[in-house]
C-alpha cells in the first residue's frame, strides 16, 4: 500500500523521538575518571576548571588532570593589576592541581611584576617531574625579560622544552637534561654564546631542534653538532650579509633552513655522513642568496631524499639543478618563489642539468610550483621537468591571485603545449 511506507517512516521517527526522551541520561559521567581526565586534558585549563561546577561527579576531576595550560588575556599587556591577578591565579592552579607528576605545563603570559612568582612556578613544575614545558613570555616595560631559574636545566624528566619571546637563556655550568628530545628556541635572548653550546653539548638524546634567531639576541650560532638530531629547523632573521653554519648531524632526516634578507649562506656539513639520511630538505630564502656547500660530495648526499622544497628568490634557482642531480629518490618537489620577490618579474639564468637527472627518470611523482609567474626561466624549468619526468603523476601550478584572467589563460595554454615525458601526468592549474 502506498500509505504504509510513509506510516512506517512516521512511526520510526516517532519511536526515535520517544526513545531520545527516554534515554536522556547522563552517559558521560559514567565514563571512568581516567577517561574524563583524558578528555579534559585536551582543553585549556580554564575550560577544564569550569567543568567543576557541572555536578558533584565533576567537582574534583579537573584537579587530577596532569596538564596545565594557561594563557592570560590581552588586556594584561597594559594593566599591571591584571597581570598580578593572573600571577596569583597561576599559583592557585598549581596548588589545587594535585597530580604528583605533570605531563605538560604551558604558559603564555605578559611578564608579571614579581619575577619570583614565575621562578616558583618553574621550580614546582620541575619538582613534579614535568615532561613538557612550553613558555611564551611577553615582556613589559618594567620587566622586559624573564630569566629562567637554573633548576630548569637539571630537570631529569624534561622531554620537550619550548621557549619563546622574551625569555633569556642563561645556562649554568652544570646542565643535565637526560631526556630532552625536543628543543624550540624561538626569538629568545641568550646570555652568551656559551649558553647555546652548553645546551647542545649536554643533550644526548635531542631529536628535534627549532631555532629562530634574530638580530640583537646576543649570539651567533654557527656550529650545531648534535649526533642524535633528526629534525632541524633554523630561521635567521638577522639581516646579516653572510651566515656561516656548520652542521654535524649524521642522522638528520628533516632539514629546514630559512633566511630573510641573507645574501650568502655558507653551509658546511662536517662529518662524513651529514645529510645522508635526510628525507626532506626545505630551503627558504629570498633575493640573491647564494648558498655554498662545503664538504660537498654529491654522490653521498641525499640518497634518501624524498621531499625537497625550494622557496627561493633569484639566486636560489641554481639549487634546483643541483638538487635534481644529487637526489636519486626524490618523489616530491616543491618549488616556490619567495614572497618577498614575487611580482618583480626579474629574470635569472637557469641552466638545466647536463644530463637528465636520475630522479626525473625514475622517482619524481609530484611537483608543486607555487607563486608561478609568466617569466621565461620559470617556463623553461617547467618545460624541462615536464619533458623529462617519466613517472610524473601530477604537476600543480599555483599562480598569484592577482594575475588577470587572460594572462592566466595564456600561461595555461603555453603549459599545455609542453611535451610531456610521462603519459599519466596531470597538470593542475590554479
Amino acid at each position, binding site marked *: 500500500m502506498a500509505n504504509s511506507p510513509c506510516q512506517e517512516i512516521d512511526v520510526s521517527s516517532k519511536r526515535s523521538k520517544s526513545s531520545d526522551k527516554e534515554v536522556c541520561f547522563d552517559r558521560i559521567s559514567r565514563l571512568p575518571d581516567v577517561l574524563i581526565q583524558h*578528555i579534559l*586534558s*585536551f582543553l585549556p585549563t580554564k575550560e577544564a576548571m569550569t567543568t567543576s561546577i557541572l555536578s558533584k561527579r565533576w567537582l574534583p576531576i579537573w584537579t587530577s588532570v596532569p596538564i596545565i595550560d594557561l594563557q592570560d588575556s590581552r588586556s594584561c599587556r597594559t594593566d599591571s593589576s591584571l597581570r598580578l591577578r593572573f600571577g596569583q591565579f597561576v599559583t592557585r592552579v598549581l596548588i589545587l592541581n594535585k597530580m604528583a607528576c605533570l605531563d605538560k605545563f604551558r604558559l603564555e603570559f605578559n611578564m608579571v611584576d614579581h619575577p619570583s612568582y614565575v621562578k616558583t612556578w618553574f621550580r614546582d613544575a620541575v619538582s613534579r617531574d614535568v615532561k613538557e614545558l612550553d613558555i611564551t613570555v611577553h615582556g613589559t616595560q618594567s620587566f622586559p625579560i624573564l630569566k629562567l631559574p637554573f633548576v630548569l636545566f637539571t630537570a631529569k624528566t624534561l622531554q620537550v622544552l619550548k621557549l619563546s619571546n622574551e625569555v633569556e637563556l642563561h645556562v649554568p655550568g652544570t646542565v643535565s637534561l637526560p631526556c630532552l628530545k625536543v628543543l624550540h628556541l624561538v626569538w629568545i635572548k641568550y646570555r652568551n654564546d656559551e649558553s647555546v653550546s652548553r645546551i647542545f653539548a649536554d643533550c644526548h638524546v635531542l631529536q628535534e631542534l627549532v631555532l629562530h634567531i634574530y638580530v640583537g639576541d646576543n649570539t651567533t650560532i654557527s656550529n650545531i653538532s648534535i649526533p642524535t638530531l633528526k629534525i632541524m629547523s633554523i630561521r635567521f632573521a638577522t639581516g646579516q650579509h653572510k651566515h656561516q653554519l656548520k652542521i654535524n648531524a649524521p642522522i638528520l632526516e628533516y632539514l629546514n633552513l630559512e633566511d630573510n634578507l641573507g645574501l650568502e649562506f655558507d653551509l658546511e656539513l662536517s662529518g662524513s655522513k651529514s645529510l645522508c639520511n635526510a628525507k626532506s630538505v626545505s630551503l627558504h630564502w629570498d633575493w640573491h642568496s647564494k648558498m655554498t656547500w662545503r664538504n660537498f660530495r654529491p654522490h653521498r648526499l641525499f640518497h634518501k631524499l624524498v621531499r625537497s622544497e625550494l622557496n627561493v628568490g633569484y639566486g636560489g634557482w641554481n639549487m634546483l639543478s643541483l638538487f635534481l642531480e644529487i637526489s636519486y629518490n626524490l618523489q616530491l618537489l616543491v618549488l616556490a618563489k619567495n614572497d618577498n620577490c614575487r611580482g618583480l618579474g626579474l629574470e635569472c639564468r637557469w641552466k638545466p642539468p647536463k644530463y637528465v637527472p636520475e630522479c626525473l627518470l625514475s622517482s619524481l611523482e609530484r611537483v608543486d610550483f607555487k607563486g608561478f609567474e609568466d617569466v621565461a626561466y620559470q617556463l623553461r624549468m617547467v618545460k624541462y621537468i615536464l619533458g623529462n619526468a617519466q613517472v610524473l603523476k601530477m604537476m600543480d601550478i599555483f599562480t598569484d591571485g592577482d594575475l588577470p584572467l587572460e594572462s592566466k589563460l595564456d600561461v595555461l595554454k603555453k603549459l599545455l603545449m609542453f611535451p610531456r615525458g610521462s603519459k599519466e601526468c596531470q597538470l593542475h592549474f590554479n
Partner: protein
Amino acid sequence: MSEVDMAVIKPEICSQMMNSYICLQTADGSIQQVEQEVAMFCPMICHEVIQKGMGSSKNCAISLPQRVNPAMLSLILDYCRFHQVPGHSNKERKSFDEKFIRMDTKRLCELTSAADSLQLKPLVDLTSRALARIIEGKSPEEIREIFHLPDDLTEEEKLEPLKNTTDDPRIRLLNRLYAKKRKELKERQKLKNDEVEEERADDRSVDDLLSFINGDNGDSKGNKTSKSKKKNRKRKDQQKSTSTNETIKNHNKELNGLNSVRCSAEVGQKSWATSNLLDVEDDIFASKNELDDGDIDDEIDPALKEKIDREVEDFARRLNSDWPERMQEILSFGHEREPVHFSLNGNGSLRRYTNSEYR
C-alpha cells in the same frame, strides 16, 4: 606449549579455517565473526588471540567487555578496517577520522568507553578530542543540557571553585534572590518553633534588611558596593529586585528575629570563603567580593529560574491573602522542608548540621 608457539600456531590454524575469522562475543551473547586482520588491530583482542588462543571458533569466542555493545562494536570494526590498511596516506586517515567522528554525543560517550575497554588508544584519543571540542567554550548550563548532567551541587558547593562567567546580570540577580529565599525558608523553620508572632513596624531600609538577613555583623563588604558597581547593568532588574525586596521586607515583619549564632556561623563561613585562596577579583573570572551575602556569581539553570519565578509569584499571592490563612500556610510550609545549616569545621570544610544538632 609456550606462548611463542601459540603465536606461531594459532594464525596458521586460523588461516586453515575457512576465512581466517575471529569470533567475538558481546555482552548480550551475540557472536560476530570478524576478519582476523581487522580484529587484531585492537590490542585487547590481539592479546586474547595470541596469549590465550581464543577466538578461533564459536565455542571459544572472545568475550568482549561489557562496555562494548554490538552497535559500538560495528563502529569500532569500521574504524579498524580502515586504519589497519597500511596504504592510506595521512591525509586520507585524517579525513576518514573527521567523518567518522560525526555522531551524537550519546554515541560518542559510548564509543569512548568501548574503545577504552578494548585498549584501542588512537580511537580513544580521537573520541576524547571530539568530546573536548564539544565541551570547549560552552557555559555550564549548555554542557549540562548536552550531556544531561544532573545539577546536584548546592549553591554553597558551587561557590568554591573558580568559574567561568556568563555575564548575564539577571542570572546573578536571580542567584542572589534564590540565596535569600533559602534563608527565608530557614527563617520560617525558626518561626515554626516560635509560637508568638509579633508584627513589628519595620522601617529599616531594604539594604539594611538584606544585610541583616545575610548575617552581617559589621563585616559586610560587597553588598552595597557591588550593587553600585553594577548599577548600570542592572537598571532593568531593579524592578524585579524591588518587588521581591518588598516581599522579603513584609516577611521580616512577621519574624521574631534571626538566630545570631546562625548569623555568625554564616559570617564565619563567608570570611573563610573570602580569605580563601580562590577569592579573587579578576576580570577573567567572576568577581568574588560578592560572596559575602551569599551572592553567587553563578549561572543558574533554566529550571532553577522557573522555580524562582514560581516562588516569587507564590510570595506575591500570599501577601494578598488573609493573615490567618497565611499563618497557617507558613506553619505548614515550615514542616515540609528541613533546611540545612552549614557551618565550618576546624579544617575549613563545610559541615552540615541538622536542625537538632544546631546550637
